[in-house]
C-alpha cells in the first residue's frame, strides 16, 4: 500500500510521527517533492486568492500527488495537539476544503487529532487510522509507540538546534559552535521557515551574511510556558504560542541581537502575533523586522532589506562593544 503525504503545512511539525507510524505498519509513504516553481504556481492557481500563502503552496503539493499512483492521500485533521490550544481554523477544515477544491483525488485517509482535553486522544486517533487500513490493534500499538518515539526525538533534535532537514530524518550531526558576532532570532511557522522555496530561503540568506540563526523550536516548552503565564490571556494557538513565547525569550536574551518575523500574507494568527512581538520589541528597544511574504514577493527586494537590517544590527553591536570597552 502507498500513501501520499503532501510536503506542506503539518508535515513540518509532525512528519516523523506519521513516518514512523506508517513505516512500522509496513505502509509505504510517498512524500511530494520539495516546493518548486511549477508546484508553487499550480497551488496559487488552485487555491482561493484570499487564503494564506502556505495553504496555496499546500494545494500544489496535494495536486502533485495525483499522478503518483497512491492508494490514499493522508490528510489528518489536527484540531489540537496540546492541552487548551488549537491549531489554525483553516487546518481544522482542511480535509473538506481540499476535497471540495480538487475533486478527483485518490481517497483521503483522515482522522481527528484532538488532544485539547486529553493527551490520550493521540493514541486513539492513530488507532483509528490503523484500523481504517485494516491492521490489528497489536500491530497498531507497536506503530503508535514507534511514532511517539520518533516525534519526541525529532523535537529533541530541533530543541538542540539541529537543522530541520536532518532532524526530520532523525539524524544528528556535529554542530558548528564557533562564536559568531551576530545572532538573530527568526520567527515564523515551520512550514514557512523550513520550506526553502516558499520562504525564499531567508534562513540561508541570513546565514550567508554571517549571522547565526535561532528559531522558536530551540526554546524549551518550560520557558515558553513561563512567558505565556505572564500574559493576561492565554494564547490558544499552539504554534503561535511557541512563536510568541520564543520571541519574548529572545527579547530577554542579550545574546540575541535582533528578531526577524517571517510572516505570511493572509495569515490570521500572524497578523496578531507579529503585532504583539513588534510592540514588545519596541518597548524594550530590541531591533525587529517583519517580512510578510506573498506569492509576488521578489527575491531582490528581500535581499536588500535583509542586508540593510543585518548592517544595522552590526553597527549597533559595534557601538555597544565600544561603549563597554571604554566605559
Amino acid at each position, binding site marked *: 500500500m502507498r500513501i501520499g503525504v503532501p510536503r506542506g503545512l503539518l508535515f513540518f511539525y509532525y512528519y516523523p510521527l506519521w513516518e514512523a507510524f506508517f513505516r512500522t505498519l509496513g505502509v509505504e509513504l510517498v512524500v511530494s517533492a520539495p516546493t518548486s516553481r511549477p508546484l508553487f504556481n499550480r497551488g496559487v492557481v488552485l487555491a482561493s486568492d*484570499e*487564503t494564506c500563502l502556505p495553504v496555496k503552496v499546500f494545494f500544489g503539493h496535494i495536486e502533485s500527488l495525483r499522478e503518483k499512483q497512491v492508494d490514499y492521500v493522508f490528510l489528518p485533521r489536527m484540531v489540537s495537539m496540546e492541552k487548551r490550544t488549537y491549531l489554525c481554523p483553516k487546518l*481544522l477544515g482542511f480535509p473538506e476544503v481540499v476535497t471540495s477544491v480538487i475533486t478527483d483525488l485518490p481517497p483521503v485517509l483522515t482522522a481527528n487529532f484532538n488532544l485539547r482535553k486529553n493527551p490520550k486522544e493521540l493514541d486513539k486517533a492513530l488507532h483509528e487510522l490503523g484500523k481504517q487500513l485494516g491492521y490489528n490493534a497489536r500491530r497498531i500499538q507497536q506503530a503508535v509507540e514507534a511514532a511517539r518515539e520518533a516525534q519526541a526525538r525529532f523535537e529533541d533534535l530541533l530543541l538542540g538546534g539541529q537543522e530541520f532537514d536532518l532532524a526530520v530524518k532523525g539524524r544528528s550531526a556535529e554542530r558548528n559552535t564557533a562564536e559568531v558576532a551576530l545572532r538573530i532570532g527568526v520567527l515564523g511557522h515551520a512550514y514557512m521557515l523550513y520550506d526553502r522555496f516558499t520562504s525564499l530561503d531567508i534562513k540561508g540568506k541570513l546565514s550567508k551574511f554571517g549571522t547565526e540563526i535561532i528559531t522558536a523550536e530551540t526554546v524549551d516548552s518550560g520557558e515558553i510556558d513561563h512567558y505565556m503565564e505572564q500574559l493576561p490571556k492565554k494564547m*490558544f494557538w499552539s504554534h503561535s504560542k511557541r512563536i510568541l513565547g520564543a520571541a519574548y525569550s529572545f527579547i530577554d536574551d542579550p545574546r540575541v541581537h535582533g528578531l526577524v518575523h517571517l510572516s505570511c500574507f493572509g495569515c490570521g494568527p500572524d497578523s496578531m502575533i507579529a503585532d504583539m512581538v513588534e*510592540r514588545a520589541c519596541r518597548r524594550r528597544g530590541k531591533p525587529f523586522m517583519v517580512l510578510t511574504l506573498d506569492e509576488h514577493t521578489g527575491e531582490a527586494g528581500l535581499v536588500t532589506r535583509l542586508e540593510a537590517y543585518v548592517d544595522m544590527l552590526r553597527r549597533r553591536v559595534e557601538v555597544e562593544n565600544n561603549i563597554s570597552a571604554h566605559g
Partner: protein
Amino acid sequence: MKITFPHMGNIWIPVKALFDYLDIEFVLPPQNSKRTLSLGTQHSPEGACLPFKLNIGNLIDAAAQGADTMLMTGGVGPCRFGYYGDLERDILADLGINLKLITLEPPDGSLTGLARRIKLAAGDKPWPRIIGAVKFAYGKALAMDRIEDIIHWARPRALNPRLAEEIYRQAQTELDQARDAKGVDRVVRDTRSRVRGLALKQDYEPLRVGIVGEIYTLLDPFSCHDIERHLGHLGVHVDRSIYISGWINEHVFQGLYKAYKDISHHKALAKPFLNHTVGGHGQETIGGAVDFARHGFDGVIHLLPLTCMPEIVAASILPQVSKSLQIPVMTLYVDEQAGEAGLLTRLEAFIDLIDREKRMNRRISDEQTVLGG
C-alpha cells in the same frame, strides 16, 4: 466607572439598556462610519480583520468621550476573536489610552465564572437587580430581531421602500427609549402595524435570498455596505442565518436562553459538507446555506471579512453545497477598500441570475406537468 462596548449593528440598544437599568454610566461611541474605520485601520495591525479595526476606532472614540472601561466578549479560540480584547487593550495602551478590560466570557464554560465577570461590570448592585437588567436587555435584543425581520419583509414589498426605512429608524429610536418590558412589546406591535399601513406592490412575489457568514459583517450594516437594505430596495426578501439574540445567547449565555430563529441545528446540517467545527461560525455558515436551500430560498450570499479564517474554510466548501443542493451562492469579501458601487453591480448581477434560474426551473416543471408523464 464609565463603560463602553464596541458597535456591531443594533447591539448597542440592548447593551445600553443593560447599563441604564443598572445606573451605570455607558459611553455610546459614535456610529460606525468611514471615519471610524480609517481611525481604526491606522492603529491596527494591517492584516487584522475588519471587525477588529472598527473595534479599535470605536474604543478610541469612546475613550475620548471619557470611557475608562471596555466590555468585550471573548472566547478561547480557535478564531482570532478570543484575542481581540487583549490585543486591543495593548494597542490602546501604546497610544496612551488606558482602558480597563472586562471580558464577558464564560471562562472554560463555567457559568459561575461568567456571573463573577458580570458582577465586575455591574459593581455593587444586588443580584436581583443584575438579573432584572440582563432580562430586560435580552428582551430588547429579541425585540430588535423581530423588528429587523419585519423590515426585511417590508422593504421589497413597499411601493416606497424609503417609508420602510423611516419605520425602521423610528423603531430603533423607540426601542432605545423603551423603559420596561411592556414598552418593548409595544414598539414591536407598533412597528408591525405601521408596516401593515404601508402601500404595497400588487401581486408581488419577491425573490428570497439568505445571507450567511461571519457574524459581525452579517449584523453590522456599515461593515457590509448595508447589503440588506440594498437587496430590499432591489425587491428581494432577505433573511439571515443569525440575529443579535442568537449571538448574545451563544457568546454570553452559552445557549441557555431561547434566541430568535435558533440555529442550533445548523451544525448538524453542515455535517455532510464539513464534519468538524472550524471556529467562529464556519460550520454554521455551511449549515445555514443548507437550511436556506431546504426552505426554498432562491439564492445565498456569503459575507466575510478578508482574511477571516473560519469563513474562508466555508467559502471553499460552499461551491459543493451550491452544486449538490442546486442553489446559487455568491461570496462577498469585505475589507476597508471594498467600494459600495462595485457591490451594487454584483448584487444586481446576482439577482438577475437567480431570477433567470427561478424562471427556468418553473418552465421546466411546467413542461413536465403538461408534456411529461
